[in-house]
């Protein structure tokens, strides 16, 4: 038990914070119900994938500035391919776009490993390249999405035997998120590859000496980041029904959630659950501030303050624990 708390203490704390925020939301807006939760989950979806993309590379000791641009490119690619196409065609589009993200991500990693240019520079350059490419694919928001894809994240999951009142709190978007992340993350976390990703982030030298193929692992970490970003791009297309070539605010949001989620920016520490919960926390804070009719500019300030306060509080607790 003490082991669990020590390891997962941060995530448990975030969950507690999330629950407090839900209660606060109910107090601010007594009518806040399952429908609102559903739209929260839908709004969180692209953010969550962006965060997953960022988390993988940060754990591997890097950073990926091209996350949002990657989402934009994959989103417009999906939207333009599906525009006017048959429903079945989308069955091909989805894996194609995911593969594209994976390959572009791997390209990021390859450039970093081969050229030895710092990751922050390579991914910044990639940000511009992908942004431009997205505008080439679609110069204005447009395209389309298959109906079944859109339906995938709207509504709730009907589970037989459960009362509707409970069912209503299980939005499909949440399920999609959980399934997509679990299918990739859990096997990864338990494999040697996952360990290797943690290892190169924690200490590259020690990893090298332990026989970890450092370069290959780094490339794969970036490829996985691209894959998650492609999921994010698809999620954008699914929720809006179109593709938008201008990247959304996902880059900074992903870094913020990674930090808030207890992943050390130096690498090697943390997991995926923390940052995902952190995304919910950050979105819910924004919802609450909107409900309170606070000036959006002040909202941003408050979000920043919350982040600093939580991370400082966490560091403080950790230091107390060490002594």
């Amino acid at each position, binding site marked *: 038990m003490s082991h669990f708390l020590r390891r997962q203490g941060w995530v448990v704390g975030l969950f507690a914070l999330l629950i407090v925020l839900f209660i606060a939301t109910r107090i601010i807006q007594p009518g806040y119900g399952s429908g609102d939760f559903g739209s929260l989950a839908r709004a969180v979806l692209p953010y969550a994938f962006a965060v997953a993309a960022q988390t993988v590379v940060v754990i591997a000791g890097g950073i990926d500035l091209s996350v949002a641009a990657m989402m934009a490119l994959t989103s417009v690619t999906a939207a333009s391919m599906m525009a006017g196409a048959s429903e079945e065609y989308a069955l091909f589009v989805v894996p194609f776009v995911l593969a594209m993200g994976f390959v572009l991500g791997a390209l990021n990693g390859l450039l970093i490993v081969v050229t030895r240019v710092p990751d922050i520079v390579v991914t910044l350059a990639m940000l511009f390249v992908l942004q431009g490419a997205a505008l080439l694919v679609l110069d204005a928001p447009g395209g389309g999405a298959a109906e079944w894809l859109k339906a995938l994240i709207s509504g709730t999951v009907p589970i037989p035997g459960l009362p509707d009142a409970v069912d209503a709190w299980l939005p499909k978007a949440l399920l999609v998120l959980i399934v997509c992340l679990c299918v990739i993350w859990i096997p990864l976390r338990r494999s040697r590859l996952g360990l290797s990703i943690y290892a190169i982030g924690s200490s590259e030298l*020690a990893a090298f000496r332990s026989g970890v193929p450092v370069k290959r692992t780094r490339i794969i970490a970036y490829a996985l980041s691209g894959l998650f970003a492609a999921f994010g791009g698809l999620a954008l297309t699914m929720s809006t029904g179109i593709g938008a070539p201008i990247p959304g605010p996902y880059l900074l949001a992903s870094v913020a959630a990674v930090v808030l989620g207890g992943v050390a920016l130096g690498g090697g520490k943390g997991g995926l659950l923390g940052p995902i919960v952190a995304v919910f926390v950050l979105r819910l804070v924004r919802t609450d501030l909107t409900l309170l009719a606070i000036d959006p500019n002040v909202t941003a300030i408050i979000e920043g303050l919350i982040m600093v306060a939580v991370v400082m509080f966490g560091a403080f607790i950790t230091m107390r624990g060490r002594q």
Partner: protein
Amino acid sequence: MTTSAQQQSPLLDATGVAKNYGAVAALRNASLSVLPGEVHALMGANGAGKSTLVKILTGAIQANAGRILIRGEARDIRSPAAGRRAGLLPVYQEPSLIPDLDVLSNLRLTGTPVEPFRAWVRELGIADLDLRDTARDIPLAVLRVLDLARALAVEPDVLLLDEMTAALPANLAEKVLEVVRRQGDAGRAVIFISHRFVEISALCDRATVLRDGETVGVVDIVPGVEEKIVELMLGTRIVKTHVAARSAAEKAVSAPARPRIAVKDLRVGTKLNDVSFDLRDGEVAGVVALEGQGQDELFAALAGSIRPSGGTIEVDGNQAKFAHPIDAIRAGIAYVPGDRSEALAMQRSVRENIALPFSAALRNWGPINMRKERDTVLGAIKRLQIDTRAQGEVQRLSGGNQQKVTIARWIAADARTILCFDPTRGIDVGTKQEIYKLLRELAGHGKSVLFYTSELEEVQRVCDRVIVIFGGRLVDIFPVEEADEPALMRAAYGLPRGAKADVGILAAPNASEPGATP
């Protein structure tokens, strides 16, 4: 060298291994042959190429030339993973467990079977290990033992131990030696790198000695072989008994009533234990130590960059507590690190770098007195004869000139004590001579210098006294007249100095008969 063991075919046989870094040859022609069932010592002075050879054998770096046979088969070990597959497992000086993973995950990462690992951990004297503990939270000594247990658990053909016992408390070290010895008896081979002759004579069957990147001898470990090994490590280099002639005037300075710095029972973690010595005005005291014997910690503590965990430092008779290098600098103690990049702002000019310590103090905020700064800097540049053709950016100067800049800044700041940590590392012979001369001059002007060098011959050229540190303890202090190279080498390896000749610093130079040669 025709022992009966020689007839067996070697487990590991490396011949003609060479490695160049640019124009510098780290290894020229190294060979190492290890037989089954043997514990083989790899020895050599600092910079002889031990660590390069180890890195090549374990796949951390690639050799430029040479042949490595494992069980008679040529193997090209291109990565540590390939080394593991070839049955060659190292335990490095720094623990190689991933700090953020728990022990179990670390085992899974390297594909180490858990049960044998547990058994070895118990065998090595650690009773209560929780495999769920994160490596970061485990003490260093235990980590090293875990590293060893992890290597043992996969039953390697050749186990490579680099200074395995260095960071271990006595009880763990004993267990480790026991286990290593049994590895040999079980028909496996162990390559054992250690600076401790005691361990080597107790444990090893043979020793390969490296000098200047070449294997210069393979000897059987028999009683009394230490002298032979020291000889091999030194080679045919002319043993200089030359001691820099000191004028009577210089000598006269060095007899003050109280020492400039008095170190008493200084302790830094586990690296440095109960070190006491004095440093007087007008003297250059040489610190002789092999790599990593605690000299880094000693200098860092004196320079105020780490806090000692025990003992006292007195400056001019007053107890000093350094919380920050600025405290040491205010007390007139300046630190010149071996690695110039630690001291200099590489992209800035020579002038700024020299002026930094005396112009940049916070209390002097406001306009800098440019004329005064220029005069002081020019004085220092002139005194050290710094080549200022590329003075716009320090990084464009040669290593020797960079080192001069780091020393010049403290002369300009008028520091009374200079701590030089291997100041001649990687610089040309001419500049080295100038630095020797400069240090002597500083002492002549009543400054005091603590001088660590990895090149033993420098000790005779520069120092008045020799302070020997071995295994974190001060083992000997003797006047430079007794410090010929064999004596220093023996001292550095913790061997007793033999009959101490009763020669003080003030004795005539002709009394400098090497007192330690038997």
